[in-house]
């Protein structure tokens, strides 16, 4: 790790009020400034790589709210992630990690097949039975949590159903490549279907290459940099085969990762070109706000927006989703307090650190309650899963939707 990145932290403390785990604990070890110091002291030999130190670092959500708050450009979340990645790379992947990251994640078909039992489990009514009987209590805690987070699955993954080419409606203004995220395809297929529809109705031909693979974010999380690079190169090559103006995604996590391909594959022009074309769906839709407005019909709902970390902090996108929501006639938009504070989902954090994740989620739910909204809008599948579960348990009167679902619904209203 680059030592200069560590000593750039001037310890001013501006990151402290932005950090979800500091807000919960008030502990310096649970703050971005503290994490940078821990990694730095480890590098300087003042501390050892103790279990305690790793435990402190693992409390980081990598939400990167600290990076947005830092006056001197230090990204503590990314530094911790980089450190974890390097450490895991050194110690090698475990059997299960290797299986998941190398045998499952890079192969969309296998990933889809792996979900079939889950779908069966829901369709056959087995889920209801299992939940009623409390059978999950007999399994390890993380499994019980994963099961609880899972919403109703679509009948088939979107990737299998979608046309590779969706023509533009009306006059064609350009072509976009659609990067269909794994979780979007497997779980939130309605939202991605809405994304394609919106793009097409605004005059874009939408190409969804069927052979695209996972963006590689899970590899990064697991410390598998080589796997990430391989995924990146595969996707770059696939999209290079089409002439597209933008590469669009409606998954905040994928978007953040795709935009970093140029950084991960150093001195690789095609990677830089790829990353420069990547846009979050809100960025593309906002380019055509006036046209979109003309197509929208009233949705009389009190709505608010939760900024996914991967969209607000990692990609710096805050204005566009709000502008788009305000286009919807009759929609009563209200700003959420601390809208860009993490919801506690953070990849697999909500399964690995359930206690802290729940505390952070609770704070988020409080602000949603206070906003008086009946509809919560966001743009990332991780947040959708976490907040859907949280709302279901504590605020069942509030619905949650992806931004594109709201806009598509308004178009159909």
């Amino acid at each position, binding site marked *: 790790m680059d030592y200069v990145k560590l000593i750039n932290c001037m310890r001013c403390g501006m990151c402290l009020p932005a950090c979800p785990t500091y807000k919960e604990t008030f*502990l310096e070890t649970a703050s971005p400034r503290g994490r940078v110091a821990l990694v730095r002291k480890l590098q300087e030999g003042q501390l050892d790589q103790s279990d305690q130190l790793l435990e402190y670092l693992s409390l980081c959500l990598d939400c990167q709210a600290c990076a947005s708050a830092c006056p001197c450009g230090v990204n503590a979340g990314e530094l911790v992630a980089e450190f974890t990645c390097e450490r895991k790379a050194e110690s090698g992947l475990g059997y299960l990690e290797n299986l998941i990251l190398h045998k499952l994640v890079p192969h969309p078909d296998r990933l889809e097949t792996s979900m079939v039992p889950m779908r069966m489990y829901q369709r056959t009514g087995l889920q209801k039975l299992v939940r009623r009987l409390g059978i999950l209590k007999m399994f390890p805690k993380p499994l019980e949590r994963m099961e609880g987070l899972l919403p109703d699955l679509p009948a088939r993954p979107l990737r299998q159903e979608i046309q590779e080419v969706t023509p533009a409606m009306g006059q064609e203004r350009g072509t976009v490549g659609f990067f269909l995220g794994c979780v979007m395809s497997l779980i939130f297929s309605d939202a991605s279907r809405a994304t394609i529809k919106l793009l097409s109705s605004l005059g874009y031909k939408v190409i969804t290459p069927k052979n695209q693979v996972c963006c590689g974010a899970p590899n990064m999380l697991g410390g598998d940099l080589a796997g990430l690079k391989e995924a990146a190169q595969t996707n770059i090559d696939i999209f290079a085969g089409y002439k597209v103006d933008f590469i669009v995604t409606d998954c905040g996590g994928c978007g953040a990762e795709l935009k970093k391909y140029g950084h991960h594959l150093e001195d690789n022009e095609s990677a830089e070109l790829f990353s420069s074309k990547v846009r979050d769906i809100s960025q593309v839709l906002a380019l055509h706000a006036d046209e979109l407005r003309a197509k929208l019909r009233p949705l009389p709902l009190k709505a608010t927006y939760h900024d996914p970390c991967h969209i607000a902090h990692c990609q710096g996108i805050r204005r566009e989703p709000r502008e788009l929501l305000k286009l919807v006639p009759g929609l009563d938009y209200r700003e959420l307090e601390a809208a860009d504070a993490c919801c506690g989902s953070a990849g697999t954090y909500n399964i690995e650190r359930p206690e802290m994740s729940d505390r952070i989620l609770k704070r988020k739910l409080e602000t949603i309650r206070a906003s008086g909204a009946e509809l919560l809008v966001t743009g990332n599948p991780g947040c959708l899963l976490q907040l859907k579960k949280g709302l279901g348990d504590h605020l069942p009167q509030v619905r949650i939707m992806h931004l594109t679902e709201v806009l598509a619904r308004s178009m159909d209203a």
Partner: protein
Amino acid sequence: MEPSFIKELQNIVGVQHTLTDRESLAVYGYDSTPEIESLPGAVLLPGTSDQVAQIMRLCHGAGVTVTPRGSGTNLSGGSLSAGGVVVQTSRLNRLLEIDEENLTATVEPGLITSALHREVESRGLFYPPDPGSMNISTMGGNVAENSGGLRGLKYGVTADYVMGLETVLADGELLCTGGKVVKDVAGYSLNPLLVSSEGTLGFFTGITVKLIPKPQGKITMLAHFPALQDAALAVSAIIAAKVIPATLEFLDKVTIKCVEDYAHVGLPLDVDAVLLIEVDGHPVVIAEEAAAVAEICKKHRCSFFQTAKDADEALKLAAARRTALSALARLKPTTILEDATVPRSCIAAMLKVIQDSAKKYNVTIGTFGHAGDGNLHPTCLTDERDQDEIKRAHAAFAEIFDAAIAMGGTITGEHGVGLAKKKYLPKLVGESGIRIMRGIKQAFDPKGILNPGKIF
């Protein structure tokens, strides 16, 4: 630290709130002060003021030192401890009362400054002190350091708002000073003594501050000056014209270049100084004041003057000042931020000294700050790995402090003496000053267990 003693600390605040692992001690070994670190023996997070009193009693008996700490944003090393107990106030963070009849707020020491701002402003009231770190700094820390901020020129500093304090003394006894009364001449004024005592005289557990009505309006203005001297004269002229702006901030040429390189806010690179001016108060009055400010700036040969039409534009105008520190800090790994302060009539002379010292010692210093208060932030951009440059930076600052003292100014306007400025204090206050301060310390803390080694 003895395991039996740690056990006793745990008995007071609980195991969960007693930190003694190596990693925790390491990260409580710093605050926001560059270059200074010092390892404590334990870190405690009490949850009640009674626990604070118990900690003080225990440590007093055992002869263990206690250093109060808020969020650790101190800029003079004041919240560091060498082997003693650090007591973090974060859990004592309740806003106890807003008294709208007496116009006071009573808070616990760990309350975040901006949280108080939000609460009182929602009721049409105003607590003016706004240190740069207000989103994380604590009220206890603000009182202990007598924090200033951008609104100091018109509204004063923390000391001007402290009305009452509840302080746990070194031996655990409680001292209550002042309260909600506007007039109080009974005996020595102890509040001002405790404010800016940097944790060396007592541990605040309750703070009552004065509130004022929230100003009804605000006008933000920005002026560019090709000549530094003209900007400095404009500052004096504005005040001589009996306009007291809420904010009168200054950016020098080095800072302007850094801000423009980093944030592209549209600053010209051929000007020597930029002033950000804000007047607040009754709409009719501020309209007149803004007109006067515009006229004075133009008379002093500003090359550009803009008045914000609305809140959005005001934010844009203030962007340069808001990004000043970030822009400078990004340039080099190490940022040494100082706060030498002079009478405002000496601003131009002080800026000249800063520029000359930077040149003489071949270091980069960008200066911005509260021109209206004479409180400048010469900020040295350096690299802690370059010990030679660090030495030269300190030599430059030593000259700057000497010059500030010679002009009737001070070595620190708002960061405190702590460890960082200790060696300069005798020059400023003289032997008699140090003797009296030591006497006061002796009266409050004869065993010397409260934040030892700070100030003198």
